[in-house]
């Protein structure tokens, strides 16, 4: 989008920068970052946020274009990537669990082979659960003692609400969910209006809207989705270190570590939603050199004081990840066992009426 104009402007305004461009894998190249959502959405904004840092730290200082390709709940843009991605690592699909879940569940219309793509880099997208004080709940431990029925508002079961719904399954909570909202923003508004009383919000909204509500006593924080530690989604999320992870809450409630099909399903879906919430994928044949270049850039960006300062403000100081461990974790989450897949499909069709 807007290639010509942006190219011209960048050429004019960045003459000095291009003059210094050293040699490197991406020297003289242009990287297209495909975002399968609309401009202005959280994913698009995150891609724009990262754009200057990658331009600065990728070897060869390539020019980066962030291109939105919305449609089909991100399926259209991902299908476009499947057909048109360049194999040299200069086309990136930057997306969320909204693209991963339909792939994992094997939904109709999915033409992209997400689990075969190479993982260039990833950024966590934390999520925090909270309830209304009217429930009488004061924290994770007495969530079962709610004085009123718990009501959760969501968009669609098979999309980004899936990890939240699965967390209720893991914890064995009796939560009624009303799906069909336009987005998490309207759900947040419905919480403020007292229409729903338990909610999950992602990092930026948590920091800027829910935290003030908590301080004013209009919301009670519960837990976070958790962070990866030795391949288990058990650690506390740095965004809210005072809150337990879902793993911990289960442990406290039941006196043992969570296990079983519910936990496996939650961990798989939640790790691509939270821990690897925003992931940049490359063509399956992307050369190792390109992957190394991204990993190198990620290390440099994480060390960049400017990035550290800005991310502190925007994401509570979250860091990018890249390299073989990240790739292995993402790929594992994208290729669940047949059992987990069957459990998910069954749960979604039985409880939420999803047709496959």
């Amino acid at each position, binding site marked *: *989008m*807007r*290639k*010509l*104009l942006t190219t011209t*402007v960048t050429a004019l305004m960045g003459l000095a920068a291009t003059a210094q461009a050293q040699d490197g894998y991406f020297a003289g190249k242009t990287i*297209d970052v495909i975002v399968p959502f*609309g*401009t*202005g*959405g959280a994913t*698009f*904004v995150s891609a*724009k*946020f990262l754009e200057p840092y990658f331009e600065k730290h990728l070897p060869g200082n390539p020019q980066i*274009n962030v*291109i*939105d390709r*919305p*449609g*089909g*709940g991100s*399926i*259209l843009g991902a*299908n*476009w990537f499947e057909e048109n991605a360049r194999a040299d690592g200069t086309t990136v699909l930057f997306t969320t669990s909204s693209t991963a879940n339909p792939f994992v569940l094997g939904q*109709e*219309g999915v*033409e992209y082979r997400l689990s075969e793509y190479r993982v260039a880099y990833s950024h966590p997208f934390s999520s925090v659960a909270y309830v209304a004080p009217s429930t009488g709940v004061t924290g994770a431990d007495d969530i079962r003692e709610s004085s009123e029925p718990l*009501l959760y508002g969501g968009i*669609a*079961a*098979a999309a980004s609400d899936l990890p939240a719904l699965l967390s209720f399954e893991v914890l064995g909570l009796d939560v009624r969910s*009303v*799906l*069909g*909202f*336009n*987005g998490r*923003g*309207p759900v*947040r*508004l*419905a919480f*403020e*209006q007292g*229409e*729903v009383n338990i909610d999950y919000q992602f990092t*930026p*909204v948590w*920091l*800027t*809207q829910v935290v*003030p509500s908590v301080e004013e006593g209009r919301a009670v924080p519960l837990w976070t989705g958790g962070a990866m530690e030795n391949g288990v989604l058990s650690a506390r999320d740095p965004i809210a270190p005072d809150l337990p992870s879902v793993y911990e809450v289960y442990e406290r409630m039941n006196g043992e570590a969570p296990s079983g099909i519910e936990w496996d399903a939650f961990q798989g879906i939640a790790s691509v939603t939270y821990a690897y919430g925003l992931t940049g994928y490359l063509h399956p044949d992307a050369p190792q050199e390109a992957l190394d270049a991204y990993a190198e850039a990620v290390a440099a960006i994480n060390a960049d004081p400017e990035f550290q300062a800005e991310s502190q*403000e925007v994401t509570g100081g979250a860091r990018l990840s890249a390299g073989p461990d990240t790739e292995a974790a993402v790929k594992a989450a994208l290729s669940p066992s047949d059992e987990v897949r069957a459990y998910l499909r069954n749960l*979604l069709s039985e409880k*939420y*009426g*999803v*047709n496959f």
Partner: protein
Amino acid sequence: MIDTALVALDSLFDPMRLAALFAGMLVGGVFGMLPGLGGVAAVSILLPFIYYLDDYSGLAMLLGAVSIVYTSDTITSVLLGAPGSPASAPTAIEGHALAKQGQAARALGVGFLASMVGGLVGSLVLFFAIPIAGPIVLMLSTPELFMLALVGLFFASSMIGKDLAKGLAAAALGVLLGVVGPAQAAADFRFTFGQVYLLDGFSLTIVALGLFGVAEVISMLAAGGGISHQRMEVSHWGAGFRDFWANKWLVLRASLIGVLGGFVPAVGASASTWVAYGHAIRSTKDKSKFGKGEIRGVAASEGANNATVISDLVPTLLFSVPGGPAAAIFLGALFSFGYYPGPRMITQNPDLMFLIVWSVALSSIVGAALCFAVTPMLARLTRIPFAIIAAPLVLIMVIGAYQATSTMGDIFMLFTLGALGWLMKHGGWPRAPALVGFVLSGPMEQYFWLTNQIHGWTWLTRPGVLVIASIIVIPLLMQGWRWLRQRRVAEIAEPDDAAEVPGADANRSIALVLATVGAVMFAYALWETFTFNPASRLMPLLAIVPGLPLTLWLAWRGVREYRDDFARDGGELVILAVLLAYAVAVWAVGLTVPTLALIAWMLLVRAQMRVRSAAVYGAAVFAVVWLLFDIMRGDPPVGALIPLS
């Protein structure tokens, strides 16, 4: 508060920021005029540039663009009859009819002034966002939003027209188009035929452009000559100012309807514009001129759409919930500058809030003035043969449609819906109810479902619901009482209540074709509806239950009244066929070759230009099309059979 407001005004008058604001206004003005490209396109094209500016300048640039789009789109709607943006479709109906009668200046004058008032009312609401608008937004829970959708439907019912069967069938058809895609209530994808393209449903832009724009272009091309058969004088604005003043209260009420529309999350300006238009019809005694050029229709819709796009910023700034599509992109821009909207942002950065207010207020006034200034030049275009304008117009509509998903589906859908719009136009089906049905079906279904899930039936007794319900019930009671009294006094003198919508001269064979097509669609929809979850069936059934019998009855009526008059509009059919062939050709061999062929056909065959001037002009049009494709999207469609672009 006043101090901060003045400080903000002062900071806006920094030369760089004013320049950015005006640059945004220029881009917004141009995009408003290009049919199918509106606020969203203007804002997303400006987005990369704002990062080179400081935060206030960047935001001012976007606001300049947002607040002028619904002023300048009046020009296209009135002069060309193709809606400059979906939310000005009513203006295209009434304003263009006026333009054809040589009253373009009157329609435009009222349109610009009403837009300005709408913008100013919106700015005022934004100014009082924290004390007044915010609490109102918080009062509007899902039951109240559902009631507002019902009010919209109630106002829209006055657009049905005289031929009740055709009007209702058109509305049902619109609702049916609106339920395509994801169901709100349960995880069903309705009527997608396994096509990923349809997973999101139809794009409003494409439906509005197809039903109105394409059909209009076809008729004007076939008619030959210029857009107006009379000389269009747009230098004398006096009549427009007088009409505006006579309708000032209507404009104000329409602006308030627009403001409310802005408060509803994710419902853009289209819904409130139609509601305001319906309100204009209901509140006008002599409804005979609606559909044939009624200035009150222009006044109401232009007042509403500008107010909506600005009050969209209220939920955006107070709750981070974008009120409409352009506001969503603006929200993204705020994020990128490190502003995270919410009540806190407004108390912490009051100068930013007031900068926004001043930017939209200033753009509303200057925007109207700019439109007054450029219109006389543009009006000259209406006297040259339409075929010369048609070539770039059709291609710009293609680009506008292509913004939806950038796949071939957009182009196919534009011309398929164009064919439907053409059938409706000639079959005597009013198109306004169809578009209203389309726009309202989504929010109605969503809010009804959420309301019933969250509140059961207790929502019916909520005070907000009762207040909003009174908007419907009181006029109905008054009407009923008046009707009773009138019946007692005089038996016959019944008021001409239905708005006159042209339909008397419908082409009978086209009406028969359309009724048959409609009946087949409804019958198929009925069959597929039974495969959905029960919760997803309600809205489609709301369309099918009246739609199927109505279309069957219309088909039967069509057979009985059949007259072989198809040839009357056969000339237009050729043009429709060419456009459909163009879509297929783009799919097969990519953009370049079919586009050149289409331009050549329009200029040489339809406009009968001389080869040399056609070559020069055609090359220029082609270059502009490529440039626009390049600016808007990196890649024009590539052929499926021969991979050219």
